């Protein structure tokens, strides 16, 4: 129960972060959305054993967190929360792919471990980029950007409604769960039968609320189309942000900066 409540507050915190006024927050949401997409495509398009090429991409989340005044610790926790998904996708690679690929002195590292590490790095990069997008823009503005860029209106609206009512629904579920636990003594009454009835009731209440919302929409002239009135304007800084970062991503994708840097330092040493 405490978990539901705290995760609710957590979502709320992500939203609060997006109210800040920093150079990152002032950018046009479309630009941030597109840049994030290009970043993700660039990161996932590397070969399965790539590690060195991925590392320089860390500059994007690091710079954005600094510019957008976002709390790195909080974002790291969020990423850790999602980490098990990537972990279980990659964890069987070391078992299946045992051919030794890299030698670190006397230790041979198999291809499986390398690809597992690569998966984890990619996961960290892409998920942090997504969180930064939300914390630096706000989901509502991201939806607006999706809409302006031609995503189907119905999906955008679904997402907006989901985001609007997830708070109402969770609060309602929370109250029901709390009411149940207050009358369940010694763990009796917390079993599956009361759970299924609780979920059923939640569904009925949700349907009833959906009906009332629909009535409220009809009462204000809803005719099947939702109109949004929020003009977006591209500024010079938006173009610079977009071109600068996507140029860098292409560069990092085509040339392995880590190897160049390493070779250069080795050259200096010799």
């Amino acid at each position: 129960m405490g978990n539901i409540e705290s995760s609710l507050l957590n979502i709320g915190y992500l939203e609060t972060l997006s109210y800040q006024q920093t150079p990152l927050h002032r950018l046009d949401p479309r630009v941030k959305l597109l840049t994030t997409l290009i970043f993700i495509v660039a990161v996932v398009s590397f070969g399965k054993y790539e590690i060195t090429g991925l590392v320089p991409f860390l500059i994007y989340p690091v710079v954005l967190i600094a510019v957008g005044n976002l709390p790195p610790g909080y974002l790291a926790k969020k990423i850790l929360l999602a980490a098990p998904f990537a972990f279980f996708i990659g964890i069987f690679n070391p078992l299946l792919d045992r051919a030794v690929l890299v030698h670190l002195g006397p230790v041979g590292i198999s291809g499986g471990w390398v690809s597992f590490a690569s998966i984890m790095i990619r996961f960290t990069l892409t998920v942090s980029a997504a969180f930064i997008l939300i914390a630096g823009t706000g989901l509502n503005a991201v939806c607006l950007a999706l809409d302006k860029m031609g995503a189907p209106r119905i999906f955008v609206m679904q997402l907006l409604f989901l985001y609007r009512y997830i708070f109402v629904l969770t609060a309602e579920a929370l109250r029901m769960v709390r009411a149940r636990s207050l009358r369940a003594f010694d763990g009796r009454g917390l079993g599956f039968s009361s759970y299924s009835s609780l979920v059923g009731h939640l569904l009925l209440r949700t349907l009833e609320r959906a009906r009332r919302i629909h009535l409220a929409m009809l009462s204000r002239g809803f005719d099947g189309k939702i109109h949004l009135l929020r003009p977006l304007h591209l500024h010079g800084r938006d173009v610079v942000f977009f071109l600068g970062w996507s140029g860098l991503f292409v560069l990092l994708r085509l040339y392995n900066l880590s190897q160049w840097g390493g070779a250069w330092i080795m050259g200096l040493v010799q």
Partner: protein
Amino acid sequence: MSHHIIELEDLHYAYPDGNQVLQGISFRITHGEKVALVGANGAGKSTLLLQFNGCLLPASGRVRIGEMPVTKKTLTHVRRTVGLVFQDPDDQLFMPLVFDDVAFGPLNLGLSPEEVERQVMQALAAVGAVHLKDRPPYHLSGGEKRAVAIAAVLSLAPAILVMDEPTSNLDPKTRRQLIELLKTFDHTLIVASHDLDMVLDLCPRTLVLKEGRIAADGPTGAIMQNEELLASCNLEKPLRLQGCPVCHPA
């Protein structure tokens, strides 16, 4: 011709499960009147409110708004004329930001962006909620939500304002502010409520609903003094009309 009149003629309505909720209701509310709709839980108040703007259509009988009968064909006009404020603001505030929500109605009417902006700011100013315009509705307090829900309806410039339990869940000061605000409106106003003290303050006329019929229709002062009537309808004298427990202990 006035849009500000609501007239019901022998209205009957039953829910699809066969529950007869409204059984022959007739009354006429004229321009600028402030009317309270009171009655027990389940007397049919909310169902009646939904008839006023065609959310529900009567099984028999007729609802007229101005000179226009409420039918499927006249819905657009009727909904522009009758603004309905729901009991739970969470049902009514569904757009991502307060501004979007208040703009929802005007945009559906196809007004120009400048006109929409003007209407929205005017409506928000009327309820004192301009500073909330860029906030998402779920971060608002109960009183703020209520104010915004009212603004969302005012932005349509309705001639008739219909409200379901406007003072429920408000703290006393917010409730008082809302009552003062509603007093300043020159709309025709219909309020369904259990808050009889608010009714006493706001509405010169009261309709008492009992088991789907009109039990009484008259000046609020007289109805609120009629203890027999009130008791038979699960109501009670407004607290303000009852003796002071300190000066006159029972």
